[in-house]
């Protein structure tokens, strides 16, 4: 099974504080915390809680602790100092614009509990380990025997004895096992109710007073769940993603920004990837992945062209369209309309093949574009133009 801790996947990642809200809603004991966007707010929150607090950067990235984004504060003033350093800090290229201020716990032991949808068993699968607070991938590599796994039948959900069996791998004390099993069951509820594809508590701690609590939370949501979970969809934070990707999602396009200079606009995800690969094969570098889908709607083509041309490093734009059910003449009309609506300063080369190919080529040629029918030819040309 894929290890969970580095996945960002087909999923919408949510922040720790948001995942903790989902956990609390399922009944999982989570220490109190609030989000601050300024150092002043951080101090006020620490003062409200009293005692020791932890100030934690809220970014969609692992390794926050190592990057200096998680700090223990003895006083509200110290929480303020930490917050002022962490806010604005960059962690793996992402700028921190909010911190979670949470009460500090007296930790006796740390464990790991996670659940994700496993591709191989096609079912939610739990992983637990008594080695908590570290990357579970690392545990899987160095000490696989320390991990206990369980496949859940998604029709019945996690059964009570299964939760106990998992908790038994973590603790010896019956009272602690009981608390942990309850939390594991609640984690499954939070996972299902949020439409998650991954949820993890790392670490799950036992306090010196013998209480089991979740002090860190991570969750990714299956994009396909969002249409029926508005409250979860509202958790999307676009502040640390490129503006072009936000715009693409709003336009219903699948887009990923890359570092090259050949803009790619393709119908279908597999063909889009193969086109990027071919750009590389001919000595170029793709500027993006973009799947315009099966639609030949000019609005989508306009949005696609706007997104691609907004990237200053793009030196040429390549369309690769295989008309199946999508008709080439429709796509050609979409491209012509789109180029009338927006100014494009870089050369555009187009490959159209499949259904109504001749009609499509005619439309494009009339509008002054040259159309190709071979994928290799058009990619080679686009690479040449980007280098010119």
């Amino acid at each position, binding site marked *: 099974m894929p290890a969970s801790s580095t996945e960002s996947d087909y999923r919408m990642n949510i922040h720790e504080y948001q995942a903790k809200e989902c956990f609390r809603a399922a009944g999982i004991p989570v220490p109190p915390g609030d989000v601050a966007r300024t150092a002043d707010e951080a101090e006020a929150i620490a003062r409200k809680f009293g005692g020791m607090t932890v100030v934690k950067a809220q970014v969609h990235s692992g390794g926050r602790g190592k990057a200096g984004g998680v700090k223990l504060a003895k006083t509200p003033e110290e929480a303020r100092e930490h917050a002022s350093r962490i806010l604005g800090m960059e962690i793996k290229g992402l700028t921190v614009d909010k911190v979670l201020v949470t009460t500090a716990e007296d930790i006796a032991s740390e464990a790991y509990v996670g659940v994700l949808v496993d591709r191989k068993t096609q079912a939610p699968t739990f992983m637990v380990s008594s080695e908590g607070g570290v990357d579970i991938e690392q545990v899987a590599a160095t000490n696989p025997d320390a991990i206990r796994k369980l496949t859940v039948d998604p029709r019945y959900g996690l059964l009570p004895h299964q939760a106990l069996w998992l908790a038994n791998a973590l603790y010896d004390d019956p009272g602690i096992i009981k608390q942990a099993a309850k939390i594991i069951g609640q984690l499954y509820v939070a996972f299902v109710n949020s439409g998650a594809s991954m949820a993890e508590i790392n670490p799950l701690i036992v306090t010196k007073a013998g209480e089991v609590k979740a002090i860190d939370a991570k969750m990714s949501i299956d994009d396909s769940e969002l249409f029926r979970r508005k409250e979860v969809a509202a958790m999307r934070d676009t502040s640390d993603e490129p503006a072009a990707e936000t715009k693409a999602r709003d336009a219903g396009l699948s887009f990923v920004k890359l570092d090259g200079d050949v803009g790619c606009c393709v119908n279908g995800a597999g063909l889009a990837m193969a086109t990027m690969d071919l750009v590389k094969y001919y000595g170029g570098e793709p500027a993006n992945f973009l799947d315009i889908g099966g639609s030949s709607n000019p609005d989508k083509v306009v949005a696609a062209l706007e997104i691609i041309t907004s990237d200053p490093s793009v030196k040429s734009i390549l369309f690769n369209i295989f008309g*199946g059910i999508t008709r080439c003449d429709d796509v050609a009309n979409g491209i012509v309309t789109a180029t009338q609506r927006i100014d494009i300063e870089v050369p555009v080369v187009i490959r159209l*093949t499949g259904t109504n190919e001749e009609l499509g080529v005619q439309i494009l040629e009339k509008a002054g574009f040259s159309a190709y029918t071979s994928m290799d030819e058009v990619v080679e040309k686009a690479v040449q133009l980007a280098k010119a």
Partner: protein
Amino acid sequence: MAIFIDNDTRLVVQGITGRDGSFHTGQMMEYGTQVVAGVTPGKGGQTFEGPGGAKVPIFNTMDQAVAETGANSSVIYVPPAFAADAIFEAADSGVTFVVAITEGVPVLDMARAHAFARDRGVRVLGPNCPGLISPGKCKVGILPAQIVAEGPIGLVSRSGTLTYEAVFQLTNVGLGQTTCVGIGGDPLIGTNFIDCLTAFEADPDTTAVVMIGEIGGTDEQEAAAFVHSHMSKPVVGFIAGQTAPPGRRMGHAGAIISGSAGTAAEKVKAFEDNGIAVAQRPVDIVGLIQDALA
């Protein structure tokens, strides 16, 4: 011969009255697929009119459709919110093969639907797939019919348009196909590479197989090992996503490199290690197949 669908396929279209369902029903009928029934709850008793005035009865439930028409397969064009229910209903109706075209079905819904179908011995293809076509016999789904031709090549792919690209090139050089199957780009799919390879190996008319994979997961690696240990017929491969960055979803929900797992390089290596010739470009597939058949 062909795999999964042929002249004996008797198809029900679930969601026949929707925009996509009605359009593709017409296309399938035009190709010669025996569409024997449609299902749209609340529209039972109505009739779907296909090309040339051919009439298809519409039923409220799958159960009625199968009882009245002796259907043995279904194809699903319903929206994501209802797709899993459509699979449950189909799997309980007596059909043995269900093709789910719908994209964007929640993964936890599919985990339940796949388990349910497996228990009933029902094969699901997809979801988020273009379907399949056995040239000259039957087409189920959305694959464009004009790019295929009858012949000896089996083709299986996780992609839609990339499949068309490969099929088109084969057809252009006179290499027709027994069946072209798009297994879908989702993380949880009902029919995988190994299922298709098993069927192609058993199909007497298939002489060589093209397998088109992409980044994400380990299905290709397992399929490669299967080819080595279980297949006598030559297999030619292609993997899309050499230039895909890790951790980013490339359109398909399942097309993602997780950590260091699921990379194109890893899959290409698995193919090569197991005797599968790998095309560097889609256009190279044709030459490799010709070599394999020579």
